[in-house]
């Protein structure tokens, strides 16, 4: 039997070549796509792991801390810094006891402290009155925020610098030293962590500069210092009552704040040179009478010296002075405070489909018991985007003190956290979030967009990351039992995002929720998503306009994973369906073209079963060939990525291909029954039989009736064309039109760019197979009508008309496929997305759905039409 079939093929090389091309297309298509889909799945998982992986899987927050924005699945990247405790140590213990919780790292945002730092010095060159203008400037990328003062110094003019009355009498300080140290004030964030857990979570122990990390021998002391009950102090009018906590600290050696401190020394150009005591006395009297500083302000000045310290220098000074134990009395003053957002319409919805506006609390006043109530806009906070929150009250007398026991520096850049600069996930405690200033207050684009950074403002719109870290023990002493702001959890056995990880994390998160009543959110597989945020006008400051900030879209990678898996399953199913149709068609056509041959064989006494056997064996031989090729290709692909493509899977694919070829041969072998051996007695008529639809009076109606007379086989090509077209529509819509998951977040965009093109390759492959299928069918139609076409030519039809007829046949097939495809894609789209298609989308859908199939149909008809034109007219007369 096999010998018979092979010799058959050998003698009809043209047909065999066509078979091989089809087989190659199917095998290469299937194997490459399956291989690619596997490695693409690998790509997704890899990129999730490497670029978007948060260092923790679940974050636990106090209940009631969910922002409005989380309804959209979006979390403010900076949310951790705004949480002021709320989780108890009991809760932490409960969490730690849950199975599969590998690391539970608590963090306590203790609040802000200010320190006075020496940032430089100036030299008075000679005696005289000097003006020093000190300016502390921070820049958030949009504008400068400065805080400065002016002071006057009398150098070497015989005033006693220890006499405190001088300043109130004359409005100037006295100096006898040539050098004057300059002081600046800095605000930074202090947080408590669990050293052991933090070491496991982010490798904090590895990021310390020297070798001194937190250890068990570090002691935390706490004492209460109060004026109450101390008569001496009370008599002096002092009233204080605070807790002083002595605790080990490490400090970040990197400042994320963009600031500088500047001092300008100027000499006042006085009429007198103040050389004699009389001159000095006269001038001081003048000064006292004419309004002190205001009087000094009226004089011309002459610049002497300018001193400036950059961010780096300032931070270096801070560290140096800390390490030397310069700060014994850090007052924890401001508490962390969250931002409130409200959803607003996006000014450019095409670019940012989600926009929020910060809602600053209105008219913030502070209420100090027993003292005056009033506006506190005079306080040094530049802008109050957040609700003001303090330890006790702004008078400092009850705010807790931290006496730092400095251990070492740590470098936040050396922590083992995601640090791809292009795609940074800002969900880390240790990284200050960034934003870009995109639109100004009048919604005009900022060109080029400016990078926006955090300032040291405790109530600003971007919050700095902690500069000083201490232990949870210290945090407990300072804030009490509910000191923990958040717990970051790592679950054992969860390495990469995916359905299994997801269900495990869900289970752990659910257990945390039910055990503790806290909020537990899965952060593994989150993606940054650009969100537009309006920075409103606050206090005296105008609105900054809009900044774009990468927010955390939770569950994103799972969604993308699902989407990708869905996409690939769809693609593979489509390709397989098209492959089945192709195999079915080729088998059917092989059968049709050999119908007469089979009739002869039946006449000479072949049984149906023998013919069936022949057809099945033939099909299985091709199937075997295809499987063999596929097997080889998959093996080669496997070499590159052995894990993703198991042998078992390859075998499954091979079995599937064999099954296609088996199923494809079933229908023709069933049709064998219908062949009457009597047909060999017939003297081929021009048209045996045919259904008709309307009158035939032109090329169009002729093509139409040709199609209708062979409607069953044409139905196959209609399906073969419409299926990939409908799928193409689906992918186009998912990717571009419906702003599906893919293009709204950066991860989705990345994935779409990396692997989305594969979708289109697959569709194109499907369409090529569809072209082959249709071409074969039309070819067969032409073949069967050889005599008819020859007759038309004999009757004087020109070649253009023959071309026209066959091409029209293809185009009509395409058109019908398009209409079928429209229904198909509408069905799929409305199932997936509901009725949310706009008119424009409908228009596209119809245009694509009709355009592509017609093109496919026309392409398919090209070769058959050439063949039809080449039919010699005499053939009809044979």
């Amino acid at each position, binding site marked *: 039997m096999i010998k018979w079939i092979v*010799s058959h093929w050998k003698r009809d090389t043209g047909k065999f070549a066509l078979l091989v091309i089809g087989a190659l297309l199917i095998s290469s298509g299937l194997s490459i796509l399956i291989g690619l889909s596997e490695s693409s799945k690998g790509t997704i998982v890899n990129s999730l792991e490497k670029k978007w992986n948060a260092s923790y899987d679940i974050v636990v927050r106090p209940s009631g801390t969910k922002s409005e924005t989380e309804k959209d699945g979006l979390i403010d990247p900076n949310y951790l810094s705004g949480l002021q405790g709320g989780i108890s140590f009991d809760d932490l213990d409960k969490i730690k006891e849950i199975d599969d919780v590998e690391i539970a790292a608590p963090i306590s945002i203790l609040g802000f402290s200010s320190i006075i730092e020496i940032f430089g010095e100036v030299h008075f060159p000679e005696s005289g009155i000097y003006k020093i203008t000190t300016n502390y400037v921070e820049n958030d990328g949009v504008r400068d925020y400065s805080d400065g003062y002016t002071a006057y110094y009398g150098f070497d003019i015989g005033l006693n610098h220890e006499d405190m009355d001088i300043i109130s009498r004359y409005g100037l300080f006295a100096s006898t030293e040539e050098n004057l140290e300059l002081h600046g004030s800095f605000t930074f964030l202090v947080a408590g962590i669990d050293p052991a857990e933090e070491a496991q979570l982010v490798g904090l122990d590895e990021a310390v500069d020297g070798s001194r990390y937190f250890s068990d021998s570090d002691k935390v002391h706490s004492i209460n210092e109060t004026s109450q009950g101390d008569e001496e102090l009370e008599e002096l009018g002092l009233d204080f009552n605070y807790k002083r906590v002595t605790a080990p600290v490490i400090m970040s050696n990197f400042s994320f704040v963009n600031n500088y401190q500047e001092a300008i020394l100027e000499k006042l150009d006085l009429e007198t040179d103040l050389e004699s005591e009389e001159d000095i006395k006269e001038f001081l009297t003048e000064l006292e009478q004419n309004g002190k500083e205001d009087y000094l302000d009226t004089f011309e000045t002459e610049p002497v010296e300018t001193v400036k310290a950059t961010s780096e220098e300032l931070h270096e000074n801070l560290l140096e002075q800390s390490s030397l134990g310069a700060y014994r009395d850090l007052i924890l003053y401001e508490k962390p405070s969250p931002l409130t957002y409200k959803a607003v319409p996006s000014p450019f919805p095409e670019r940012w489909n989600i926009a929020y506006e910060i809602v600053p609390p209105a008219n913030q006043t502070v209420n100090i018991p027993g003292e005056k109530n009033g506006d506190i806009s005079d306080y040094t906070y530049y802008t109050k985007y957040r609700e003001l929150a303090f330890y006790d009250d702004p008078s400092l007398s009850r705010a807790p003190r931290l006496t730092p026991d400095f251990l070492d520096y740590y470098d936040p850049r050396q922590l083992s956290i995601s640090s791809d600069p292009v795609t940074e996930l800002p969900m880390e405690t240790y990284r200050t979030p960034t934003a870009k200033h995109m639109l100004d207050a009048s919604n005009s684009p900022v060109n080029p967009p400016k990078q926006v950074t955090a300032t040291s403002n405790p109530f600003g719109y971007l919050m700095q990351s902690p500069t000083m870290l201490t232990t949870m023990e210290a945090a407990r002493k300072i804030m009490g039992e509910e000191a923990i702001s958040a717990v970051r959890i790592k679950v054992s056995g969860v390495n990469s995002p995916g359905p299994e990880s997801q269900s495990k994390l869900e289970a752990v998160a659910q257990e945390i929720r039910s055990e503790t009543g806290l909020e537990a959110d899965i952060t593994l597989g989150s993606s940054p998503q650009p969100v537009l945020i309006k920075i409103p006008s606050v206090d005296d400051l105008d609105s900054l306009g809009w900044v774009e900030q990468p927010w955390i879209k939770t569950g994103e990678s799972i969604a993308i994973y699902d989407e990708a898996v869905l996409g690939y399953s769809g693609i593979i199913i489509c390709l397989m369906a098209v492959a089945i149709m192709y195999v079915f068609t080729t088998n059917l056509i092989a059968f049709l073209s050999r119908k007469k041959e089979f009739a002869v064989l039946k006449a000479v006494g072949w049984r149906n079963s*023998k013919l069936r056997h022949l057809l099945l064996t033939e099909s299985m031989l091709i199937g075997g060939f295809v499987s063999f090729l596929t097997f080889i290709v998959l093996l080669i692909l496997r070499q590159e990525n052995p894990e993703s493509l198991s042998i078992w899977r390859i075998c499954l694919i091979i079995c599937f291909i064999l099954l296609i070829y088996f199923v494809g041969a079933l229908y023709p072998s069933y049709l064998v029954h219908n062949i009457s051996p009597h047909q060999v007695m017939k003297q081929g008529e021009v048209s045996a039989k045919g259904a008709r639809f309307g009158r035939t009076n032109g090329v169009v109606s002729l093509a139409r009736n040709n199609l209708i007379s062979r409607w069953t086989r044409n139905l196959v090509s209609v399906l073969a064309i419409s299926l990939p077209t409908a799928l193409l529509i689906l992918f186009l819509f998912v990717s571009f039109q419906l702003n599906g998951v893919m293009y709204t977040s950066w991860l989705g965009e990345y994935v779409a760019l990396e692997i989305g093109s594969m979708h289109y390759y697959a569709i194109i492959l499907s369409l090529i197979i569809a072209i082959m299928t249709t071409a074969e069918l039309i070819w067969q139609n032409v073949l069967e009508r050889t005599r008819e076409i020859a007759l038309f030519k004999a009757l004087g039809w020109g070649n253009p008309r023959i071309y026209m007829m066959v091409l029209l046949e293809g185009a009509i097939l395409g058109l019908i496929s398009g209409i079928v495809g429209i229904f198909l894609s509408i069905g799929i789209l409305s199932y997936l997305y509901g009725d949310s298609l706009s008119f424009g989308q409908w228009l596209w859908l119809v245009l694509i759905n009709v355009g592509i199939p017609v093109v496919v149909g026309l392409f398919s008809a090209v070769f058959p039409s050439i063949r039809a034109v080449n039919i010699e007219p005499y053939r009809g007369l044979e």
Partner: protein
Amino acid sequence: MYKQIQLNGITKTYGKQNVKTVALNDISIRLHKNNLTSIVGSSGSGKSTLLSIVGTLEKPTKGTVYYDEKNISEIRANQLSELRNIHIGFIFQQFHLLPALTAIENVLAPLFHRKTSYNKNTKAKELLELVGLSDKLHALPSQLSGGQQQRVAIARALIAEPDWILADEPTGNLDTETSEKIIALLMEIKQQTACGILLVTHDIALSRQADRIIEMKDGQIIADTRINNNLVQTND
């Protein structure tokens, strides 16, 4: 070994009720293996249809066909194939050789996957020798002339050592000279193999060489003539 084929009241119609064509109208006839019977008639007279029904290629609309005592209307398609394969050899006007097979492969086609008491290949070669094509064993049909193709078809009809050979206008596509040679060949085969031959033709001259001539018109037998009385007579 079937010695005679008997048709009783055979009617064959084509098409649906409103456009019915009657190809055969109540025909009863008995054919004997010893005869070379020719069926003549103009085109459309039903002679080819009669041959199809005799050769079990088609089933009659009405009536029964007996191979000796066996009513073949009652047997199933697979058994009919079997019957054709073993007992009947066909020769067609258009030869109907399988284009992808060589001469000898075409001859062997009916025996494909069938066990025989004799050596199939030797037999096929003998037969091709008999039809005068011993030098064309491995030629493809397209490399053969019409007459040669028909000889291959004859060899194919003989390969299974049938009881009957049914030939439908075997010379219809051939020129006169070749036709005569083919008929002579058939006569020779008749002598050698003692099989019954049923020959459909519209060529009166050819039909004269038969033992019995059945003339048909409009689906009916209008004459049944025995020409050579040397052979055993059969009475209807």
